[in-house]
């Protein structure tokens, strides 16, 4: 047989059996196709259609609206959801309820589903991904969404050095931003210089920071490429700015901002849009008539008509409102759980025990690039970290602080993560103070003096002085840990300081011991940011990597290997390979104990009034970067008295 023909037959045969990725992507879209459905809308919108204010429902929905499965049952329209926000001028709901990502997670926190994008196809070499938007998708003011908006967002906003001084990092590989190619009105392609399999995570995760879809029709009025600059400078001066791009930044609310909140009438793609602030501290949101999701019966979502968000700065005042049943949905810290549970029957609400996605809530990271040479050498000694971990009585911490309901474990990926192995949790997690003391004796830290505290060979006492941020059980856990380590002869002189001060010290490499949640515990958490939160346990090594060797300190070979493994894990488009590399990273963490944790699977109680339905029950996953509400689908929550 002709050798070329032979080769092509073989290729064809192979392609029949290896399922291409585009089909995989379609497999998620198939259950969601809604051909042949009749659509219904909320009564308040139907009124506006009848008065001629809005076009009919068929014209407002895209050709292929996303069909959302309800958690409990199909809902009814109507009602106003009451929430509170703890920070002034900052709508907690804005993230989850006003913006939408291109792709999102299923409730299991691992499977990736279409959202704004109808389908996607990652190329075989993982260097490019083709994304198809829903045809007929519209902004909340009725203007159609097309790839013009994507092109504008990328070329005119993200790549514009005046508006965005730093290049967008989630869409750059090896420091080089991606290329964006428009295929047609609804299809576009992202092209990277190197393979970037984790781009899927970026498409889920980045919407709040580097949105790829921005309302061109609205924002071009503030952009010098579309409006004469003199006109813009005049508008800018009136607002107190000097440059057109400062005005642009002020007017652009397509991301989570550092100042102010989204104004009313700003075009959005979320279920609700900001209506205004009728009284100080009260923000109203109302349903978006062009929202592009429906339920299984063709009813346009969301069910809830409006949201009333009140600013309540004082935590006790918030607690009072929760126990009075005045807030329909709120997350509250675990320490409040008993009070919340005690009042639930009387005030008609339930407390859902959701599970946080962190590996361990309070994690101790010894700074291996700390300026002091003796402490640094000690922190770099694995035996010291092993001892520190073995001395912690995790069962006791769980019983005292977490009501015995969470999981005593080592800091590692959580059980839902693809990289999880049961033995990771148990690594150095047993309570063995004798062995810990032996290890410290081996290192050469002698006990001296009346207290029996350990000293360096130079005679100096081993004292650690971490600064602790209030809340999240950090001070309480540290108090217990200080107790445990005192049996080892290590003095932990800790104090609570303001959150901002800790952040500043961290940035300045002044923390000997960083106390933070163990965040790299999920597939997406491991891929984003930096490997294993290296900033917390080796700021100077991270500097070295980020500056390509110009700043910081050169790390040892195994850390360079760690970084390379992480890069490869992010790049590969092959799921099996990604899992293999992810497990290698996770194993490295539990063998080397960069972060030492005590209790994971921590519970985050959510107060939900009885009239609010379709909210996930106990055991549901929550926390960034799963973007809690995107998993919990607030668009399908409904109110029924």
């Amino acid at each position, binding site marked *: 047989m002709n050798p070329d023909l032979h080769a092509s037959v073989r290729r064809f045969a192979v392609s029949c059996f290896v399922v291409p990725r585009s089909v995989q992507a379609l497999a998620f879209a198939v259950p969601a196709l809604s051909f042949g459905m009749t659509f219904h809308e909320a009564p308040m919108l139907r009124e506006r259609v009848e008065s001629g204010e809005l076009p009919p429902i068929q014209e407002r929905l895209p050709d292929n609206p996303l069909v959302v499965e309800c958690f409990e049952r199909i809902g009814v329209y109507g009602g106003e959801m009451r929430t509170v926000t703890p920070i002034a001028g900052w709508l907690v709901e804005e993230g989850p309820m006003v913006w939408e990502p291109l792709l999102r997670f299923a409730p299991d926190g691992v499977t990736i589903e279409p959202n704004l994008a109808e389908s996607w196809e990652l190329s075989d070499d993982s260097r490019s991904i083709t994304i198809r938007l829903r045809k007929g998708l519209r902004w909340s003011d009725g203007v159609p969404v097309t790839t013009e908006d994507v092109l504008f967002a990328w070329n005119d906003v993200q790549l514009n050095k005046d508006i965005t001084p730093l290049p967008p990092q989630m869409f750059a590989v090896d420091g080089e931003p991606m290329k964006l190619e428009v295929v047609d009105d609804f299809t576009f392609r992202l092209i990277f210089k190197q393979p970037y399999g984790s781009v899927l995570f970026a498409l889920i995760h980045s919407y*709040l920071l580097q949105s790829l879809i921005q309302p061109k029709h609205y924002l071009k009025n503030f952009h010098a490429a579309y409006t004469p600059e003199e006109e813009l400078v005049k508008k800018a001066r009136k607002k107190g700015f000097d440059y057109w791009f400062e005005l642009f930044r002020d007017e652009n609310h397509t991301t989570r901002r*550092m100042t*102010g909140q989204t104004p009313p009438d700003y075009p959005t793609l979320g279920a609700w849009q900001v209506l205004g602030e009728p*009284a*100080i501290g009260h923000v109203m949101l109302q349903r978006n008539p062009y929202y592009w999701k429906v339920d299984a019966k063709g009813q346009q979502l969301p069910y809830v008509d409006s949201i009333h968000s009140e600013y309540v700065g004082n935590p006790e005042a918030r607690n*009072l409102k929760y126990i009075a049943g005045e807030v329909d949905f709120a997350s509250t810290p675990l320490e409040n759980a008993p009070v919340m549970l005690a009042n639930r029957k009387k005030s008609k609400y339930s407390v859902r025990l959701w599970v946080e996605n962190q590996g361990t809530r309070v994690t101790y990271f010894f700074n291996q690039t700390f300026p002091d040479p003796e402490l640094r050498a000690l922190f770099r000694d694995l035996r010291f970290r092993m001892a520190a971990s073995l001395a912690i009585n995790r069962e006791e911490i769980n019983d005292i602080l977490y009501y015995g309901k969470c999981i005593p474990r080592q800091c590692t990926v959580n059980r839902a993560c693809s990289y999880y192995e049961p033995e990771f949790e148990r690594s150095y997690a047993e309570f063995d103070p004798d062995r810990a003391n032996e290890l410290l004796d081996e290192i050469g830290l002698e006990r001296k003096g009346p207290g029996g505290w350990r000293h360096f060979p130079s005679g100096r006492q081993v004292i650690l002085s971490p600064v602790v941020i209030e809340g999240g059980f950090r001070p309480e856990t540290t108090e217990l840990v200080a107790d445990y380590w005192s049996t080892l002869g290590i003095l932990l002189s800790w104090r609570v300081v303001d959150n*901002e001060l800790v952040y500043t010290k961290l940035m300045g490499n002044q923390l000997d011991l960083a106390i933070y949640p163990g965040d790299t515990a999920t597939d997406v958490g491991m891929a984003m940011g930096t490997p294993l939160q290296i900033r917390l346990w080796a700021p100077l090594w991270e500097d070295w990597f980020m500056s390509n060797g110009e700043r910081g300190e050169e790390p040892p070979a195994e850390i360079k290997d760690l970084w390379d493994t992480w890069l490869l894990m992010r790049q590969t488009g092959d799921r099996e390979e990604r899992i293999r590399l992810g497990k290698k990273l996770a194993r490295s963490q539990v063998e080397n104990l960069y972060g030492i944790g005590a209790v994971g699977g921590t519970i985050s109680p959510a107060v939900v009034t009885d009239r609010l339905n379709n909210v996930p029950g106990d055991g549901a996953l929550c926390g960034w970067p799963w973007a809690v509400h995107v998993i919990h689908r607030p668009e399908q929550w409904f109110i029924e008295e």
Partner: protein
Amino acid sequence: MGKYLLKRCLYMIPVLLAVSVLSFTIIQLPPGDYMTSKIAQLQMQGEEASLSEIAALRSQYGLDRPLYERYGMWMWGMLHGDLGKSFIYNRPVSTLIGERLALTVTISVCSILMSWFIAIPIGIFSAIRQYSPLDYFFTFVGFIGISIPAFLLALLLMFGTYELFGVTVVGLFSPEYAVAPWSFGKVLDLMKHIWLPAFIVGVAGTAGTIRVMRGCLLDELGKQYVIAARARGVSEVKLLLKYPVRLALNPMLSTIGWILPAVISGEVIVSVVLNLPTTGPLLLEALEMQDMYLAGSFIMILSALTVIGTVISDLILAWSDPRIRYE
């Protein structure tokens, strides 16, 4: 008198200048700036910050310029009536303070009036019936009032009213009226809610005023002229009110000027606990987040009012007590 007034006004200028430098510097003293505060706050909420926006805003708001330049920009704006923009809210400082001013002043005036109308009669009574059982009773209550911190009292009362009456006194309005436009019903609702902050803030002040009134009046009542007047047959009430009470009010009048800034800033901690939409919480948020224009401008306003208030105090004192005169 006119020359005296002019001199006092001229003295105000260097004082205010010094206050502006001091307050601006102190606000910037903690390491970092608004951006680092906001980043830290976002981290606590479990969210991330956009590095690009941080860099952009830092330069846009001049946070990367040296301290004296930022001070100069701020002072220049103030002299033109521009108090600057708040980072937290992204709105002008004057608007933010202005929209809260009416409610703040209402609550402050209510608490002050309540405090005086209760404290002065009780103080007088305590003095004339010294060591009587009622005097001991009022003294006891007074000391409790001074020793319980206002915010603790606020928390206890908030919880107490909920447990006993099932009403949450969070904020100044009931949920139905909170976002509704002003109406007679809304005013009534405000009256129903305003007693709690007025009472709490008033109580602390009441106790102090009672003790001061009592002490000063006792001093006066022991003096020769009182005995002489009594001997001449002047009625007790007239005796009491014509001179001794007027003189006992001196300490209060001399500090009345400080009421002016207190009225504007409201009681901060109690307002935070009760979640009142007043200027007090605004100042606290601004200081916590290093929102330099909001905090700085607010403190300047309060300082200006304090200085002006002190001048007014001195004038009132001079008018009420003929013994005090200035060259």
